[in-house]
């Protein structure tokens, strides 16, 4: 029975993929960038002298796929994941630390801030690849109705909030939709220059009066209905849908969404102008970064790490971000390429230019903590309770800090 099954199985296994020498996995980049990865794989073949295989996986369930690969004893050699995923997998011990596998000179090539985002308990678990950051987009039709001048947009977050209030008061349309759902308020704290931990990273400290005041500001805005409550549940998705429907004046958005907006509602896209994301006291802005990690159980860890380093070297990172037109490299040299300072006429080009300005302060602000699921949930639940008036801001932040400090 088993033999027969195996025979049938072998017959049906059209080109089984067991003979691969090196394999890397990307997150949802095919088929859009097949034209980029095709030649890249060919160069990789030459570089490493073996067959290199590229697999692209949709965002859904990518972690489980990796885990299944690890369990079956044939994980891919390098996997491209976002910071949250890498920190989670690192915490679970499914990834190899890269510090011992690569020399210091290689690591020097990357922007220190980018490396920091993938460091957990002193060890590096991902080699930074491309980053995407945020800009501010305005619906000029709505601005004009509210009597605001689109050519002179606010340069600070409080300025944007003032405009949002004016828009709501004058037109009845929501002015803006802050990205504070889930654990995004952690990023808001950092952007405003408020610390998350003490110096030694042993204690959470985000219940100071300054932190409370920042949260209180959003509680007051919600109370007066200055932003749509749905962003607390669906975050950016809710903001994007409203903006697309012409029901939101200002949106904080990634430049890669502009081509999508162009299709989803051309009329709104046509009246959209863009500005860089304001830089607050923290001198940082969230820049979501992908990185290549090496799973435990790969046949040759050194070689796998070299593959990850090669995939994220100056040349390849520069080529990739030139191809996307909306992302940015994270190596020191590639990031300073003049390409990213060039503008253009369409709002999509402008969006990239503005993003490149934001990117000077860009950093992945995901906070690595042990027991991430539990700690993040405590954070999210309490902020939600505070925004909807079930708890005071002080009480909510005190409660979170208590849970966090019990785990740190």
């Amino acid at each position, binding site marked *: *029975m088993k033999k027969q099954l195996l025979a049938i199985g072998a017959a049906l296994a059209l080109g089984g993929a067991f003979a691969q020498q090196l394999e890397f996995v990307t997150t949802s980049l095919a088929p859009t960038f097949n034209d980029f990865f095709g030649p890249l794989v060919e160069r990789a073949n030459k570089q490493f002298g073996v067959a290199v295989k590229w697999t692209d996986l949709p965002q859904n*369930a990518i*972690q*489980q796929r990796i*885990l299944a690969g*690890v*369990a079956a004893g044939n994980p891919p050699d390098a996997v491209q994941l976002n910071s949250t995923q890498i920190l*989670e*997998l690192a915490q*679970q*011990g*499914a*990834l190899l630390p890269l510090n011992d596998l690569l020399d210091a000179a290689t690591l020097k090539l990357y922007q220190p801030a980018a490396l920091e985002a993938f460091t957990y308990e002193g060890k590096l678990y991902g080699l930074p690849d491309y980053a995407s950051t945020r800009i501010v987009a305005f619906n000029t039709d709505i601005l004009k109705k509210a009597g605001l001048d689109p050519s002179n947009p606010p340069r600070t977050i409080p300025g944007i909030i003032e405009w949002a209030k004016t828009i709501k008061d004058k037109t009845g349309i929501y002015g803006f939709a802050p990205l504070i759902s*889930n654990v995004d308020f952690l990023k808001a704290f950092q952007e405003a220059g408020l610390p998350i931990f003490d110096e030694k990273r042993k204690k959470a400290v985000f219940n100071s009066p300054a932190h409370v005041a920042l949260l209180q500001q959003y509680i007051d805005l919600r109370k007066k209905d200055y932003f749509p*409550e*749905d962003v*607390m*549940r*669906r*975050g950016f998705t809710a903001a994007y849908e409203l903006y697309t429907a012409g029901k939101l004046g200002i949106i904080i958005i990634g430049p890669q969404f502009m081509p999508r907006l162009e299709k989803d509602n051309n009329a709104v896209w046509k009246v959209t102008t863009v500005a860089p994301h304001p830089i607050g006291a923290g001198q940082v802005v969230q820049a979501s970064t992908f990185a290549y990690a090496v*799973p*435990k*159980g790969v046949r040759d860890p050194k070689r796998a790490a070299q593959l990850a380093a090669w995939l994220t070297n100056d040349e390849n990172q520069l080529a990739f971000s030139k191809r996307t037109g909306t992302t940015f490299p994270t190596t020191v040299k590639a990031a300073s390429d003049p390409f990213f300072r060039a503008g253009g006429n369409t709002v999509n080009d402008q969006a990239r230019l503005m993003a490149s300005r934001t990117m000077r302060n860009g950093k992945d602000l995901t906070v690595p903590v042990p027991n*991430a*699921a539990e700690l*993040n*949930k405590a954070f*999210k*639940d309490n902020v*939600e*309770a505070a925004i*909807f008036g*079930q708890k005071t801001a002080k009480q909510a932040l005190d409660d979170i800090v208590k849970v966090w400090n019990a785990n740190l």
Partner: protein
Amino acid sequence: MRRQAWTTTLVAYAFLAPALVLMGLFTFYPVLYGAYLGFTQYTAANLGSGEPPRWVGGQNFALVLRDPLFQTGILNSLKYLVVVPILQIASLAVAVLVNQKLPFMAFFRAGYYIPVITSISLAAVMWEWIFQKDGFLNWSLRLIGFFNQGGQFNWLLNEHTALWVIMLVTFWRGFGYYMVLYLAGLQAIPGELEEAATLDGASPWQRFWRIIVPLMRPTILLCSLLSTIAAIRVLEEILVFTGGTGGPLNSTYTALLYVYNKSLGLDFNYGVASAAGLLIALVGFGLSYLNFRITREDRGER
């Protein structure tokens, strides 16, 4: 007689063999292994290092039972059972309705099956619009004078309504599914029986309760059991409509969301997830037993 009992047993196992072999290998074995994991410490780290699970006894169960989040989850999943009787009665009624010999019935049957095959993530966009503050549900309620402009709210953002409107989506997804099962069951009822009852002057209502329901008992057991288990294990709707958070304020945090977050979702802590899953299974077994009792299934065996 003896000989016959032997042959019957042999025949029975021959018929069962393919299913038992496959289920044994791919269902029973992983399920038993999963149950064993409930008594061990087993995380993603074990996968990476190839380290076997470490026996910890009832530690995971104690941890899960003490976790207020798990208690909330069980409570919400039990609340979700409300959808079962409504869904079953409606599905059976719809099945009877489209079982008539009238024109276009094939069209309606196919139409009612659409929710079963509609992608939930896309259907969610429409449902979001229904439940919004300025959405269809509030608009309709205002039309019939239920409340004024000021009283409106987003149904998915209110901790008192969120779970119930998500149940409505479960109802929407389910009734076409159970309709098909009931239709299949209805085909086994001889037409003469119904005709005779009609001639005796039975109203459609009486025919439904006195002929259809008793004769459909095996199908009703099947459907109510499946529906009960689906309700206690509800997950997909919660993931789609709350982004996996179980909000607002944990009012839609179900038992299986707990398991999901402990295993696949975030923690990769398979030991704790399995323990929680086993505890949910206990509740499921109790409810299944009730289902068998309520439908008083008779066995027509040899």
